C-alpha cells in the first residue's frame, strides 16, 4: 500500500449532504495514476483531502512512510514582480538545479524564462506552474488539470517525460480527457456520482511509456471500462 484513503466522510461547512460517505481507495504502486469523473463529483475535494488541505470529518488518509504529498492546479499564478526564470531559481532547491534545467528543456520553456508570468500563454503558464512543483522534494504530486490549456502533442511529450524522469514518485492526474487517462495512466480511479456504490472504481490503464507503442484495442477497451464505471 502506497496511498490509502479509508472510510472518508466529508461535507463542506454549511452543507447538510455529505460529499463523501465511507469513501475508500488504495493505490499500491508508484507511477502515473488518474482520478477521473464527471464535473462536480468531488475530484478536487478528494485531492485536497489527500494533500491535507481539507480535513475529513471521519476516516483517514495514509501515505507510505508519511511521504510528502503536493497538490497543484491549473489556475495558479506566479507573483508578477519577477520573471518566471528568477522565480524558478528562487523556489528550486539547490540539489534540483540540473533537474530544473532538464525540465525547462523538455517542456519547451527555455525561451520564456525572462518573461513575466502574466505575459505567457495559458499553456505556457500551465507548464511553468507544473514545472515548479516537479522541482520540489515530493513523494506524491496531485496534478489537478495541470495541463488543461496545453496542446495535445506537447501534453503527450510532457506526460512521457514526467513518467520517465520520476519513476519512483506517485502522480495522481485529474483530467476530463478519457483518451489521455486511458493511454497514459496505470490505475484510473473513477469517482462516481453520490448515489452510486462503490464511489470509487479502479480501472487498469495502458500506462504508455516512452518508446513503447500503445495497443489500440486495449486502449479502446480501457476507455469503455472507464465510461461504464463513470
Amino acid at each position, binding site marked *: 500500500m502506497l496511498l490509502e484513503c479509508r472510510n472518508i466522510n466529508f461535507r463542506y461547512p454549511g452543507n447538510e449532504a455529505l460529499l463523501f460517505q465511507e469513501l475508500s481507495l488504495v493505490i499500491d504502486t508508484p507511477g502515473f495514476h488518474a482520478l477521473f469523473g464527471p464535473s462536480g463529483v468531488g475530484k478536487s475535494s478528494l485531492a485536497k483531502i489527500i494533500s491535507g488541505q481539507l480535513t475529513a470529518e471521519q476516516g483517514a488518509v495514509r501515505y507510505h512512510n508519511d511521504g510528502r504529498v*503536493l497538490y*497543484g492546479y491549473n*489556475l*495558479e499564478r506566479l*507573483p*508578477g*514582480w519577477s520573471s518566471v526564470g528568477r522565480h524558478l531559481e528562487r523556489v528550486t532547491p539547490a540539489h534540483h538545479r540540473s533537474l530544473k534545467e532538464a525540465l525547462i528543456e523538455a517542456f519547451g520553456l527555455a525561451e520564456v524564462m525572462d518573461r513575466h508570468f502574466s505575459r505567457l500563454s495559458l499553456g505556457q503558464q500551465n507548464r511553468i*506552474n507544473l514545472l515548479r512543483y516537479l522541482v520540489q522534494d515530493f513523494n506524491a504530486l496531485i496534478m489537478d488539470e495541470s495541463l488543461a490549456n496545453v496542446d495535445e502533442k506537447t501534453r503527450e511529450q510532457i506526460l512521457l517525460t514526467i513518467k520517465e524522469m520520476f519513476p519512483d514518485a506517485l502522480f495522481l492526474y485529474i483530467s476530463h480527457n478519457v483518451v489521455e487517462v486511458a493511454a497514459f495512466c496505470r490505475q484510473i480511479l473513477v469517482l462516481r456520482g453520490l448515489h452510486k456504490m462503490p464511489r470509487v472504481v479502479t480501472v487498469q490503464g495502458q500506462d504508455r511509456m516512452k518508446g513503447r507503442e500503445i495497443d489500440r484495442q486495449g486502449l479502446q477497451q480501457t476507455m469503455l471500462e472507464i465510461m461504464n464505471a463513470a
Partner: protein
Amino acid sequence: MLLRRIYQFMMIYGLGVLCLLALKMVADLSDYVIPGLDTLWHTFREVAWRYTLDVWDTLRVAMIGQVLSIGLALLVGIVGRQATWFGSFIKVAAYNVQAYPIVAIAPIIFILLGDGFLSRLLIAAMICYFPLLLSVVGIMSQPIPDIEHFYRQTGRMRWQLEVKIRAFENLSKLTTVIVGSATLAMAGTIVAEFIAAGAGIGYSIRIALYQSDLAKILVALFMIGITLSVYQGVLERAGHWVKQVWSG
C-alpha cells in the same frame, strides 16, 4: 492624469461660481452677499499670494499627517491581517472608531496641546488614519489563493512574502486609497485650522467668514482645489510609477 484632475476641478469650480452668479441674478442679491466677477478677480489679485502660502502651509501639515497615517495603517494592518484575536480586535476597533466623527474630538486636542502645529497634525492624521486602516486591513486580510497556494504547499510562506503578494496584487487599490486619504488629510487640517489654529488656509477662511467676505472664501477654495488636484495627481502618478517599476 495630473492635467485631467486639474481641468476637472476647474470645470466644477467654474460651474459652482456660475451657479452662485445665477442665484445672485435670480434673487437680485447685492455684491455684499455674492460678489460679482470683477470683485472676485480683484480679491484674487489681492490675496492670491498670501493664500498660496497658507495653502502650502496646510498641505505641508496634511502631507506629514498622511504619511504618518499611512505608515501606522500599514503597520497595524499587517499585524491585524491575521485571523487571530488581535486581528479581530483591530478590525472591530477600526470599524467602530471609524464610525465616530473624529473631528468632534478636535476641541479636546486643542485644549490639551494648544493651537499650534502639533494639534493640526494630530487631527489631520486621525481623520485620514481610520479609513486608511480599514482599507489596509481589508486588503491585507484577503488571501490571493492562486498565488499563495504554492508557497503554502511547499512550506515557503513567510509573513513578509504574504504581505508582499497581497500588496502587489492590490497596488491599484492601495494607490486609490492613498489618493483618497489625501483629501481626508487636507480636510482634517483645514477643519483643525478652522476651529482653533492660528495658521493655514483654514485659519484664513475663518477670518474671511468673520468678515462675511465670500470673495476671499471663493479664492481660498480655488487655491485648495488646485493644490489638492496637483497633489492627488502626483500621488496617482507615483502609484503608477511604483507599479511599473515593481512589475518590471
